[in-house]
C-alpha cells in the first residue's frame, strides 16, 4: 500500500572526502520501508549501516540522491526542521552513551516530552506508560550509574518510544549486552512493534538481533547486496 510507506530512498549516495581520495560509504541505495516493519541493515563493519541509519534519522544528509522520511525530504530540511522531525517522529537507540548521567531514569525518559513543551500531567502519564513497557517502573528515581547495562538500554528504549514515534532507529543496540539482556530487549522491541505498530529499523551485525528481524537488508561496501523478508520470527 502506497500510503503506508514511511521511508523511501532513491539512488542515495554518501561520499566522504578523505583529503585526496573519496570514500563512497553508500552507493545508490534505493529502498522503501513501510509502516510497522521490523527491519535491519545487516552486514560487516564499515559497510555503511550507521551512515544509512543516520541519514534516515536526519542526523546526516546524503551527498546525492534523495531520502524521504514521513513525507519530508531529508536533504532539504533546515536544522530546526530536522530537529523537529527527530523530536516528534523518530526515536533513537545507540550502542553507547545513551543516557544523561545527571538525570534520573524518569527525567531521562521525560526529556523528549519536555522538548515538545508537553504539559506535565500528560508527560507523567506517558513516561509512566513507557517505563511500564520496558519493565522499569520501579526504577524511575534511579540514576543511570545505578543501572545494569541491560536496564540502561531499556531506559533508552523507553525514551525512544515515550513520544510514540512512527519510527525507532536502533544502532547496534545489543553491542554492550550479554546474551540474556540482548534477548530481553529484542523481545521488548518486538512486542512494541506488535502492539503499537511502531516501525523499527536496526543497524547490526549481531546474530541475536538478526534472529528477530522480519526483514534483512544486507549491505556490502555501501551497496544493497540482498533484501529478504523472513517468513517466521524466532522468539528466543
Amino acid at each position, binding site marked *: 500500500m502506497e500510503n503506508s510507506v514511511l521511508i523511501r530512498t532513491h539512488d542515495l549516495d554518501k561520499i566522504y572526502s578523505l583529503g585526496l581520495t573519496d570514500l563512497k560509504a553508500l552507493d545508490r541505495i534505493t529502498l522503501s520501508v513501510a509502516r510497522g516493519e521490523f527491519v535491519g541493515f545487516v552486514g560487516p563493519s564499515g559497510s555503511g549501516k550507521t551512515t544509512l541509519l543516520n541519514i534516515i534519522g536526519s542526523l546526516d*544528509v546524503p551527498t546525492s540522491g534523495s531520502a524521504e522520511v514521513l513525507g519530508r525530504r531529508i536533504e532539504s530540511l533546515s*536544522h530546526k526542521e530536522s*530537529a*523537529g522531525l527527530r523530536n*516528534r517522529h523518530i526515536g*533513537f537507540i545507540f550502542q553507547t552513551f545513551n543516557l544523561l548521567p545527571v*538525570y534520573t531514569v524518569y527525567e531521562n525518559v521525560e526529556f523528549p516530552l519536555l*522538548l515538545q513543551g508537553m504539559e506535565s500531567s500528560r508527560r507523567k502519564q506517558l513516561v509512566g506508560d513507557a517505563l511500564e513497557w520496558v519493565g522499569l517502573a520501579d526504577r524511575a528515581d534511579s540514576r543511570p550509574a545505578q543501572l545494569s547495562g541491560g536496564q540502561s538500554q531499556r531506559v533508552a528504549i523507553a525514551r525512544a518510544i515515550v513520544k510514540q514515534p512512527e519510527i525507532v532507529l536502533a544502532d547496534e543496540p545489543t553491542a554492550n549486552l550479554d546474551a540474556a539482556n540482548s534477548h530481553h530487549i529484542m523481545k521488548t522491541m518486538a512486542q512494541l512493534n506488535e502492539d503499537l505498530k511502531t516501525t523499527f529499523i536496526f543497524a547490526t551485525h549481531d546474530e541475536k538481533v538478526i534472529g528477530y528481524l522480519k526483514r534483512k537488508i544486507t549491505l556490502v561496501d555501501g551497496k544493497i547486496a540482498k533484501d529478504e523478508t523472513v517468513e517466521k520470527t524466532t522468539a528466543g
Partner: protein
Amino acid sequence: MISFLFKGLLRDRTRSLFPLLTVLSGVVLTVFLHAWLNGSISSLIQSTAHFSTGHVRVMTRAYAKESGQIPNDLALLGIDTLMAELKAEYPDLLWTPRIKFGGLLDIPDAKGETRAQTPVSGLGVDLLAPESPEWRVLNIRQAIVKGRVPSHHAEVLIGEDLAEKLRVQPGDTATLISSTMYGSMSVANFVIAGTVRFGIVAMDKSTVIADLSDVQQALDMQRGAGEIFGFFADDLYHEERGDAVTLDFNRRHAFSPKDTLAGDASFSPVMGTLRTESGLADYLDYVGVFSGVIIGVFVAAMSIVLWNAGLTGSLRRYGEIGIRLAVGEDKTHIYVSLLAESLMIGFIGSVLGTLVGLAVAYYGQVKGFDIGSVLKESTMMIPSLIRARITPTTFVIGFLPGLLATFLGTAISGIGIYRRQTSQLFKELES
C-alpha cells in the same frame, strides 16, 4: 525546561562549582575594590574640601592666580559685605572665611629663651562664634586629643604630632612668627588650648589653628580673609550645583575690559569649585575611567577562565550533547540552553559574590585601613585611615562582570556547537 537545566547544574558539581567559584571570586574582588576606591576617593575629596578648597571658594582674582603660594597680600578685604551677599544669594551653602598662612612656631623655655622652633602651616578659622560652621566642617570637638577647644582670644589648637615633636602641653605658650599682609614681621603670643588629630598626616604634623580674628590682627588683615569657603550642608560635593553657583557668582562679579585696564580687576572676587581648585579634576576623571578599567579587566580575565572551563566542559559533555541532538533538540536550542545555564551560574555567583564583597567592604568601612606609615612625608590631604565606602552602586556593580563574563565565556566556547553542521557535530560526538 529551565528547571530541568537547573537540576542538571545542581547535580553536576564539575559543571557548576568551578564556574561558580570563578564568578564568585571575581565578583567579590570587584565589589570590594569598588567600595575601596569609593572610600578613598570620597575621603580624599572630603579632606581636600575641608582643609584646602571648600566645595567652592572665593578669592581675589590675583590671589586665585597663585593660590598655592597663599599670597595673603592679595587677600579679600571687607569680607563682611561679601559674606552677607554669599549667605543671601546661596543660602543652601555654608559660608566661612579662612586665612591660611605660613610661619614659625617658637616655644620658649622658663627663662623666655627659644627652646624649640619649627615651621608650621597656620589656619585662621572662626573658632569663637558658637554658630560657626567650622565646628561641623572641621569636626573640631571630635579631633581634640588633649585639652579643650579655644574659648578666648589668643588661644590656639595645634596638631597632636606637632605638639609631641615640640614637647608642648595644653596651657603652654607659643609665639607665632609670620609676616603681615603688608610684608612686615609679625609676632604674636598664643596659649595652646588643646591638641588635635584629623587623621591626615600633613595636618597633624604641622598645623596651628587659631581664631580668625586673632589671625586678622596678627597679620594686619582687619576684615580680610584669604579665602571664603562654601560647603554643602550634607558635606558632599555636588558638582552641578557647585558649577551653577560658581557661574552665577562669577557673572555677577564679572569685569569689563575697561575696568581691567583701570586695575581694579585683580582685587575683585572670583569663585572656583573643588574640582578646578584642587587640581583633582583630572584625578576625578581618572577614577571614573579606572573603575571601568577594573571591571573590564575582571570581565576579560573571568571570561577567559570561563571560556576554557566551557571548552573542557563541552568536551566532557559531548555525550550529553549528542543525546540531546538525537532526541531532537535543535542545536540553537542547545546553545541557548548552555547560555541560560551559564547565566544561572553567573547570577548565583554574582549574588553570593556581592554578599561576600559587601561583607568585606563593610568591614573596611567600619574598621578602615591604616596607610599612615606610607604617607609619613606626605603633604596630600589623604586621611591616614582609608575606609571603604558602600554606595548603591556597590550593590549592583558585581553583576556586570559576573553576568557578562559567564555569558561571554560560554558564548565563545559554545560557538563550535552552533557553527557546525548537526551531522558533523554528531560524528564528532560519536567518536
